[in-house]
Structures are given as structure tokens and as C-alpha cells.
């Protein structure tokens, strides 16, 4: 609670700094580096929220946004996600599957680690074996579970043959998954990490600073800047102050309020990363009251999505249609957008015998906007005749708490392919199935989709699965949040890419004017 109050206070005082700053807003016309071409040289200083002294440089342990960005600066994956979450080759030059989709042959490009050694098939297999080690608990372990590592082999130094346990057309999603980085064979010590990424290690002080330098031999071309420094600042206002004071050049994750406050200020430029975060309420289907499809439909209809986006996201986002992945590959655009129909919602609530029913909505400060979205949505539910009580949970253990407890909670998700969202959250066997959506016919459709080599055929099955979710599912997806990053006007080359995709928080393509 303490930090929440502190944050609220910071928000209130942001206006004060702005008011004091407006006096100096009359400088020369805004000239951003983005208008000129890329320039070489300089030290790019980027500020992120961090994990204190607990941070690690082990790319397989990456958890925080700052760790994901650092990993991508120092290491490579075989593939990564484009802005629409389709897979782009990276260290893998190309891949092809056999007709049964159970054997995948991946050809590596010519690339080298920072110590001068080439990236070989053995490094790939050893990295994957480390992540998949049954005795350990790396995050991407379940993602790699589809690979039969014992039968997989290095055909030669630049060719890996992966044997899968079942046909899997979306295997490239595995190569691009969060945290599946390639490290030199047998690496266990990451105090001075050696990767094949665009920057190489110089020095690290956990919770404070990581200094990297340009890898002139990077396979995709050397970065524009000479040095890249990650600095840690947990308070958003401190990141913005450091940027305004010229102490950093890039501030990750700022609020929509800050963006609006400094609009037109020539000391700060804002880039919107659209479609970065899905915002939802999750209803549990295996228990009262949301085991009643009529009541779920009432919830979908009583939600005023526009109001949620305007108030909770301060307008920085788009409304959702109860489906994950707007704008991503295979997203079912053709399903009509749900709009509010309060009268019908009231009628459905009455019909379900739920008028005046007490419902608990679980929320916490685990993600920004959760508490606000709960209070706005509770009001909307009350208008439809439900009696809602908003319960504040512990922010550190929230995700575990909502997995099995309660019936309605705030939920959010970062970007991932729609297939991964299905696999992790919507199959009977999914370990993080918050809505308890367990439908054998849905599982069967998934199995069918991922065994189809033809992309068009797969798209049709995915659309069918999304229609099921839209009609009967437990995710009330009300919006997609833009993520905002702020940069000094000297910085050019910041891409608009959803968080967790290749071009997000990627600094080898950024330059300083």
C-alpha cells in the first residue's frame, strides 16, 4: 500500500514539474534526430525499471523488461517476432520441415560469439538442453517441451535437425519464444556474458548499470552507437526527470499522463508502441456464477470498453473484442466488434437469476491500471444490477493467487503469437489456464491447426477457435494498451513495435544525433 500511495502522490505532483517547466518551452523549433539519417557514435543511455540487486544477466532467467532488452542486446535467438508477431529468422537463416512436421532442419547463418568463436549447431543444442533441463526451472522450459532433444542432432556445424514429439507447424514460434537465447556450449557463468548479439559486455552493477560496447562484427551490421548503457530507475517520475535533465536519452515505460503533460515540449519525444498489452477481466468457467453462459454474455454486453480505455489507459489504446492479439497474425478481424447493450445485459442478468448477486472482483497493484480498471468496471457492473465488491490482493503473489482462487479478476498479457496464447492458457492441459476453459473440441481444433502445413488452412481453424472464445470464453478483453517510451530529441530510430517483439527496446538500430 505504501508504494501505491507514493505513486499516486507522484502522479499528482507531475503536474507541478510540468507547470514549472512550461516557462522554458519556448526554445528553438523541434528538430529530432529522426529527421536526419543514422549517425555513428556516442553512448546511448537508456533507463528502465529494474529488479534491484536481484537482477541477473543469465538470458535464460530473463523475466523483467530490462532483462529481456539486455538479453537481446548481448545474445541472439534463432528467430524473433515481427510487429504482427509473425516469426522472422535471426540466427537461423532458414528452416524447413519434413512432410509430417515432426522433423525440422534449421540452417544457421554465419555468425560469431564475442570471443571470436563461431555459433555452431552444438551451441544451439546445448542452449536448448540447458533450458529444458528437467531438474531446473527456466521459464521457457515448457515451450521447448515439444522438442525431443535426445533424437535431435547437429548434422554439421551450421545445420541442426530438431526431432519433435508431435507434428507442430508452429515450430518457428518456439525458436522465437521469450528467453530462448543461444549461449556458447556449456556456459553456466554469466558474470561476464559472451553472446553473439550486437553489443558485448563491458561492466555490470546489478540494480544500477550495465555498460555494453558495439560489436563491430555483428552479422546484421554493427550498431550505430559506440556504447549502450542500461540505467535503473524504478519510479516513472524519476525516469522522466532523468530524461528531462539530460542524464538519460531513453526512458522505457512512461504513463499516458506524462506523455500528455509534456506534449509539445521540445525536451522529450514520445513513441507509442501500439498493441503492446492486452487488458482484460478473466471469468472462471468452472464455478458459479460464470459457469452460466448467459451471465458471461451479460458481462460482455455491460462492459463500456470506450470508457475503460479513456479512463484507465488515458486514451492510449484501442478497445478490445474479447479476443487476444488484435493486429497480430491470425487475429480474427472478421468477428464483429461487441458494443455495449445495457438493456440486454440487464435482461440477461435477470434471466440468470443474478440480480443483486454479490460478486467479488479481484485486483491488485500487480500491473499498472489494474486498480483503476476494477473500480471503473465495478460501476459498470452495478449499472446492470450486480452487486460488486472490489478486493485488493497482494501485488507480489497476484498471478499465483488468481490462478485457482476467486471467480472474476483483472488480467493482462504482453505480446505473444495467438497460438502461444492458446497453448499456454486455453487448453485442458495448459498450466496457466486462468479462465478454466476446458473444451475437448477446442483442444482437438488446436491439435488439428498445428498439424496443418498450409497457412491458409491453419488460419481457418484459428478463426474457428477464436469464434468459440468470442462467443463463450472467459476473457473479457476490453482493451489493448499502447506502451509509451520517451526519448530525448537527439535519439533517432525508435521503432513502433509491441513489447516483447524484435524491434521493441532494441538499440542497435537507434542512433544519437
Amino acid at each position, binding site marked *: 500500500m505504501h508504494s501505491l500511495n507514493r505513486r499516486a502522490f507522484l502522479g499528482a505532483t507531475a503536474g*507541478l514539474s510540468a507547470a514549472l*517547466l512550461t516557462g522554458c518551452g519556448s526554445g528553438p523549433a523541434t528538430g529530432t534526430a529522426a529527421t536526419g539519417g543514422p549517425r555513428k557514435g556516442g553512448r546511448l543511455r537508456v*533507463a528502465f525499471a529494474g529488479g534491484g540487486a536481484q537482477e541477473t544477466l543469465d538470458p535464460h532467467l530473463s523475466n523483467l523488461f530490462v532483462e529481456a532488452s539486455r538479453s537481446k542486446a548481448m545474445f541472439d535467438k534463432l528467430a524473433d517476432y515481427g510487429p504482427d508477431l509473425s516469426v522472422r529468422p535471426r540466427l537461423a537463416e532458414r528452416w524447413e520441415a519434413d512432410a509430417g512436421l515432426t522433423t525440422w532442419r534449421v540452417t544457421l547463418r554465419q555468425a560469431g560469439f564475442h570471443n571470436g568463436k563461431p555459433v555452431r549447431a552444438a551451441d544451439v543444442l546445448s542452449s536448448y538442453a540447458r533450458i529444458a533441463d528437467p531438474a531446473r526451472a527456466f521459464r521457457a522450459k515448457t515451450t521447448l517441451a515439444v522438442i525431443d532433444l535426445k533424437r535431435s542432432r547437429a548434422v554439421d556445424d551450421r545445420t541442426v535437425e530438431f526431432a519433435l514429439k508431435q507434428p507442430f507447424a508452429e515450430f518457428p514460434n518456439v525458436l522465437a519464444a521469450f528467453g530462448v537465447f543461444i549461449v556458447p556450449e556449456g556456459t553456466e557463468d554469466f558474470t561476464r556474458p559472451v553472446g553473439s548479439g550486437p553489443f558485448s559486455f563491458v561492466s555490470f552493477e546489478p*540494480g544500477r548499470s550495465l555498460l555494453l560496447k558495439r560489436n563491430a562484427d555483428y552479422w546484421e551490421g554493427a550498431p550505430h552507437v559506440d556504447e549502450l548503457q542500461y540505467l*535503473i530507475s524504478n519510479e516513472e517520475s524519476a525516469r522522466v526527470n532523468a530524461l*528531462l535533465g539530460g*542524464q538519460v536519452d531513453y526512458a522505457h515505460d512512461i504513463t499516458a499522463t506524462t506523455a500528455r503533460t509534456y506534449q509539445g515540449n521540445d525536451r522529450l519525444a514520445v513513441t507509442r508502441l501500439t498493441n503492446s498489452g492486452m487488458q482484460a477481466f478473466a471469468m472462471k468457467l468452472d464455478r458459479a456464477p460464470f459457469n452460466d453462459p448467459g451471465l458471461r454474455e451479460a458481462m460482455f454486453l455491460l462492459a463500456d470498453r470506450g470508457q475503460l480505455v479513456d479512463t484507465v489507459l488515458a486514451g492510449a489504446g484501442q478497445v478490445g473484442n474479447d479476443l487476444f492479439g488484435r493486429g497480430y497474425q491470425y487475429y480474427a478481424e472478421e468477428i464483429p466488434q461487441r458494443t455495449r447493450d445495457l438493456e440486454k445485459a440487464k435482461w440477461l442478468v435477470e434471466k440468470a437469476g443474478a440480480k443483486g448477486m454479490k460478486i467479488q472482483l479481484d485486483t491488485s497493484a500487480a500491473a499498472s491500471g489494474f486498480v483503476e480498471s476494477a473500480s471503473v468496471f465495478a460501476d459498470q457492473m452495478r449499472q446492470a444490477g450486480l452487486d460488486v465488491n472490489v478486493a485488493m490482493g497482494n501485488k*507480489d*503473489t497476484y498471478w499465483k493467487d488468481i490462478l485457482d482462487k476467486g471467480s472474476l479478476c483483472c488480467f493482462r498479457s504482453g505480446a505473444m503469437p495467438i497460438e502461444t496464447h492458446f497453448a499456454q492458457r486455453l487448453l485442458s492441459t495448459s498450466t496457466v489456464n486462468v479462465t478454466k476453459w476446458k473444451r475437448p473440441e477446442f483442444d482437438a481444433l488446436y491439435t488439428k491447426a498445428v498439424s496443418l502445413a498450409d497457412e491458409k488452412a491453419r488460419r481457418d481453424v484459428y478463426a474457428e477457435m477464436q469464434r468459440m472464445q468470442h462467443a463463450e470464453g472467459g476473457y473479457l478483453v476490453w482493451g489493448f494498451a499502447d506502451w509509451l517510451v520517451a526519448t530525448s530529441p537527439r535519439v533517432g530510430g525508435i521503432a513502433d513495435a509491441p513489447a516483447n517483439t524484435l524491434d521493441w527496446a532494441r538499440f542497435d538500430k537507434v542512433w544519437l544525433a
Partner: protein
Amino acid sequence: MSLPRYAARRLLLGLAQILAVTALVFVLTEALPGDAAVVLAGDTPDPERIERIRRELGLDRPAPVRYADWLLGLLRGDLGSSLTAGRPVTGFLADAGGPTVQLAAITLLLLVPLAVAVGVVAAVREGRLLDRALTSVGIGLYSVPEFALAVMLVALFALRLGWFPPTAVGVGPNLLAQPAVLVLPLLVLLARPICSISRLVRAGMIDALRSDYVRHALRLGLSVRRVRLAHALPNAVAPAVQQLARTTDWLLGGVIAVEAVFVIPGLGTSLVSAVSARDIPVIQGLALVFAATTVTVNLVADVVAFRLAPRAGGAT
């Protein structure tokens, strides 16, 4: 009671207090919902994975066993390793301790002469314009929370006027390498203790100046200046020394607000992140440092007060 006996008794009591604090902190941390495994799993709380992390971290052993292990390690001078980062806790303490100790030390160095001077000047001019001005400013400043003061100072002196850097971001553990970053945090840290300590010095000084022995000394023909500084002042500062001890505790607590606004990764920030990560060895290490500091500082303050004015310290 003689001073050495008094000090020895207090020292033993202090050790018992430190041990009690670590036990209490351990119990309280255990009572927090979830453990390091749950926090590490984050937004993918795969139950099987949480169990595996728990086994990896040794969290599957009963709490008393883990506390006993920690105590045994402590006897060997080993504070254990962070659950989440795997690095030794002593390294954490050294890294985070640097900036906090620097800030606290400089604050105290400036605080003592400033507060005593302000208090003495106000007492000597009791009831006059200067005294009333110092009193009003002091009470006004004392009522501004550190956080609000920090935000205002940053907005004015860093962002508007550009005189000082707004944060200490990018400065290494040695803040003295860039003294400019210290100015605003020091102003915030000094503001309230100056008020409280100078008020105490002023009150003590006024009492002392009215006392019989001061009047007697003046009757004997000693100079006013000598009477004030050599006779009145030592009696006046005894209560202030104890307040100073409390201030030191507060400073070493890292003054979480100040560390947050100015991005100073000190002990306060460490404690907050260790608690939210449920990183028990780190929390225990920090608790040990805080408890030891508190006990030591209060012990020293009491001994000093005992020396300065035996009537004040002897009763405790």
C-alpha cells in the same frame, strides 16, 4: 553506576536485541503471502514450476530449520546468498551500504554544527525577532514531508533552473565522484532533523541559561561567551544527542522516499526490493545491519549523554 559497567550491561542487552530482531523479521517474512518461488514465477505461475523453484532454492525445508541454518552461518560470518540472484548477501550489503553511509555521514557532519548553532542563536535571542523567525521557519519546514520537499526541489532547482542534476542515475556507488548529485538529497535529508534538533538545543539552552549554576558562574565574573559555551551548552545538548541517535537510525533506513526520488540505490531501496522478492537471506542481512546500527548508535548516544549530564543518562 560506573560508566564501564553501564556500557557493558547495555552491550549485552544490545546483542540480545539484535538476535530478537532477526528472529522477528524471519517470522514476519514467513508470514507474508507467497515465497520467493511464487514471486519468481511471476505471471506464469505454473504450479509444477513453482515446486521446482522451491526445491532448487531449498524452500521446501521447514522454516525453523532454515532459520537455524542461517544462525549457524552467521556464527561463521556467512550471511548466505540471495535466493533470486545467487550472489552472497555481504556483496549486496556492501553495494547498497556505500551510498547510504555516504549520505548519512555527510548529513550528520553538516547537521550537528548547523543544528547546534541555530539552537544556540535562537536561545540567546529568546523571544526576539530572530528567534521567532527561526522558530516559524523551523516548524513550517518540519511539517513538509520529505517526499513533497524532494519533488519541489527537483522541479525548481533541477528541471527549471538546471543548477543540479535531477537524479543520481548513472552515478556509481561512490556518490562523491559527482558531488553535484548530493546537493538536493542532502537538503531534503537535513531539512527535518535540523528543525527538531535545533528546537531541542534551544529549549535545553534556555533552561541552562536560567539555571542557578549559570547565574552563579556569571556572578563569579566569567565571560558571557565562556559561560554559554562551556557551562550551559553541554547540559543543553544531552537531549539533542539522543535525538541525533534516532536521526541516525532514520538516515540509515535509507530514507526510502529520498532514495526513490533521486534514484540512489541504497539500503532502503534494497530492502524494498528484497521484501517484494521474498528474498529472505537478503532481508535478514539488512535486518542485521539495521538492528546492529540502531543498537550501537543508541548505546553511544546514551554513553555520551551519561558523560555530559550524568543525571539524564543514569536513570536508564
